[in-house]
């Protein structure tokens, strides 16, 4: 009987392991997250960062009747809510800006525990919002990177602090906004602060003790490999921050993590050269923290086109060969496919209007178009805008459709060069070295675009009024969930882009939509404004 029930539930995409009261999430559960689609154990649902749910109780046929199941709101209003939850064994772990962690009953939305770290009276947050995009879970602890750049481990059952380590100096502009990535025996974290001209890095910590295991600096210093790509010998190299989440391939034991812009953003006078490893995808050996390979999307970048979107790992057949790939819809307007074992360029095509490159060469390096640099005075009109083809908001890949879904921004901006020098000591403000003038509202729009994952070819698009900063979820129910910046949250047919359901939430979603199940019932979850909202079928 039990077997029959399991088979039925498997057919619904709702098969789960027995509920564990111990709230223990060992590495093997995360590694094999496909075995428990009722859970959501990493920022993007799996180590492959596909933002894909195997659940299919909610599907094309019934999504039109989706209703709000519960809402949670913090006890005080929050700003910049970009928190994507972890769900394990019926408990949801969310963050509340800036750095509070709260555990909710995923069935009712009721609060179980909450922890708020003691932040300094003034938290330095230059060029970023003091917020948290979520926690990581491993064994019996949850982990958060705080606005003042601490990494804190909490007891999964009570929220009690197990350890708290100082990752970097907030007074220098370092902050943590991205979720940690929990591996077998490491907690990997990135850092933010490029606009404060900090030097980026990627760190790994012992999950049990908080001891730092390795640090990979993402810009060189004098004498390091890559120093020659900074005009001054990299004495002052700054930027390449790692402020979002990464992905992991256990077979290759490689971590994939994107890096941000060089500093100053728009004034490149003091940094001739490619400026490694800014605006790049890094493949890092998980054991040693050594760089295995890198791919720089935008060499010598000066439009603030960070590359901090979570890289999407997928396997596909190209020319009859099974390939291990990574897909990346970059802020610079190109969609890239790379071989994730070698970093070798497979293909790259624009997914929005872009004017800064004439194309990509055989190695994927952009062929610069003339006169697209920021200039003094009125500036230079460049597509895409500073917000890029897409910024940090997660795309989604559906193994069911083979499509890569991205929330595309169709807009340009005048890029203006100003003065900008990196000064020693704590930053006094944004080290931007210029700025932009955006095109007016009606000249911009957004779209959910479905690209053939292996080629970048456009399969369909669903137009939005304005460019949207809303991540995407796709599901085995044949659905794509995302939102507009005007506050719509909606479901599209994953094959055709046809809208099937929508709701006006009063504020744009800024967190990853995710899906989970409790007691055999599938939920779609997202945030908007001050609200954390779970939807389900009646």
């Amino acid at each position, binding site marked *: 009987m039990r077997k029959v029930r399991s088979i039925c539930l498997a057919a619904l995409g709702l098969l789960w392991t027995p509920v564990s009261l111990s709230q223990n999430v060992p590495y093997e559960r995360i590694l094999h997250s496909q075995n428990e689609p009722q859970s959501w154990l990493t920022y993007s649902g799996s180590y492959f960062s596909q933002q894909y749910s195997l659940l299919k109780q909610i599907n094309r046929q019934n999504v039109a009747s989706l209703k709000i199941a519960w809402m949670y709101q913090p006890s005080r209003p929050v700003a910049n809510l970009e928190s994507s939850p972890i769900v394990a064994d019926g408990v949801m772990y969310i963050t509340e800006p800036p750095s509070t962690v709260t555990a909710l009953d995923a069935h009712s939305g009721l609060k179980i525990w909450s922890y708020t770290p003691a932040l300094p009276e*003034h938290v330095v947050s230059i060029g970023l919002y003091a917020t948290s995009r979520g926690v990581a879970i491993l064994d019996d602890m949850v982990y958060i990177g705080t606005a003042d750049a601490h990494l804190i481990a909490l007891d999964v059952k009570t929220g009690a602090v197990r350890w708290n380590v100082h990752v970097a100096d907030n007074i220098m502009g370092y902050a943590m906004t991205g979720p940690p990535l929990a591996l077998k025996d490491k907690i990997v974290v990135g850092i933010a602060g490029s606009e404060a001209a900090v030097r980026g890095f990627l760190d790994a910590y012992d999950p049990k003790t908080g001891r730092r295991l390795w640090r990979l600096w993402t810009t060189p210093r004098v004498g390091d490999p890559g120093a020659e790509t900074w005009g001054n010998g990299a004495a002052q190299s700054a930027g390449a921050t790692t402020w979002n989440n990464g992905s992991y391939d256990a077979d290759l034991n490689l971590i994939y993590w994107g890096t941000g812009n060089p500093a100053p*953003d728009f004034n490149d006078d003091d940094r001739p050269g490619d400026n490694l490893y800014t605006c790049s995808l890094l493949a890092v050996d998980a054991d040693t923290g050594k760089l295995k390979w890198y791919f720089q999307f935008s060499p010598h970048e000066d439009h603030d086109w960070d590359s901090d979107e979570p890289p999407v790992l997928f396997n596909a057949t190209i020319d009859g060969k099974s390939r291990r790939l990574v897909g990346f819809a970059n802020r610079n307007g190109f969609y890239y496919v790379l071989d994730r074992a070698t970093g070798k360029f497979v293909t790259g095509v624009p997914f929005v209007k872009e004017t800064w490159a004439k194309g990509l060469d055989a190695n994927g390096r952009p062929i610069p178009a003339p006169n697209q640099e920021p200039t003094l005075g009125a500036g230079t009109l460049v597509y895409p805008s500073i*917000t890029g083809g897409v910024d940090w908001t997660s795309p989604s890949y559906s193994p069911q459709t083979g499509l890569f879904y991205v929330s595309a921004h169709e807009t340009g901006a005048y890029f203006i060069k100003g003065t900008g020098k990196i000064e020693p000591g704590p930053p006094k403000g944004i080290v931007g070295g210029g700025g932009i003038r955006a095109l*007016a509202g009606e000249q911009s729009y957004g779209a959910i675009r479905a690209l053939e994952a292996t080629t970048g070819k456009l399969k369909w698009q669903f137009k939005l009024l*304005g460019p949207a900063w809303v991540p995407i979820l796709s599901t085995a129910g044949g659905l794509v969930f995302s939102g507009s*910046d005007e506050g719509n949250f909606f479901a599209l047919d994953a094959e055709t882009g046809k809208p099937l359901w929508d709701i006006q939430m009063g504020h744009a979603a800024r967190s990853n939509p995710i899906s989970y199940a409790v007691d055999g019932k599938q939920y779609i979850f997202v945030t908007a404004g001050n609200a954390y909202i779970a939807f389900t079928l009646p």
Partner: protein
Amino acid sequence: MRRSNRGVRVVSSKGRPCTRWVQILSLFLTLAGNSLPCFAGPPQDSKAVQLTPDQLQHGKQTFEANCSTCHGLDGAGAMGPNIQGIPFRLGVDRVANVIKNGMAGGMPAFSGQLGADEIQQVVGYLLTLSRKDEGQVTGDAAAGKLVYESSHCASCHTISGEGGDIGPELTTVGQSRGPNYLRNTILYPGTDLPQTRIFLETGGQLQFLFVRVLTKDGRTVEGTRVAEDSFHIVLEDAKGNFHSFRKDQVRELDKEPGKSTMPSMKGKLSDTQLNDLVAYLAGLKGTP
């Protein structure tokens, strides 16, 4: 605007609106800056910031260093909303407070990075940002007030609490718009519609946009867009009625950028009348 002081009326239009009536009543729709329906009235303190040229220059530098990445170097918006003219609408104290403490939706607090003096300098610089097209006042303001009245401008525009709410409020228009801009807008209303980006979370600012909807049952509804998302649009017709549509439930939806419901006054006013009207409007700098 006084829209916040009355209930929202969503009505279904019966028959075509009278185009001529639309034109007469829609005078000067585009004359001023943004219309922000949620603010009850003009600030009383927008002239309170007095800065030396050096302080203003420092305010400019502080703005460019700290604000321009999100709001654009001209304040017209980028990742953050358009803030041109914001001190005129909110008042300098409230703007200073927002800079100091931040606000929900994305504006960070700058209290730790900027001192009170620096914030005042930024506000002072913001006051200069939205000033458009200076030029010379040559007419007579008192005579211009009569032109304003005889041309029925008040049917659509409010000054110091008096008038209609189809077009933007003009109580402080002289602070943010110079004579050349005012003259050009009176003659060519559609050429410089207030350009704002869409940021629902920061107040739902949208461009002034003329929209025509053809419903599935054959009705045509024309008006100015007052709200829009990816699935819906709300228009305000010339009578001040709101019409709400789901976009997938209409037959046609035509947006006409560059068109205004305000008719051009070209050929309708003499040069003297035009100069007088410009002088009157350029002198509107807040409630005495």
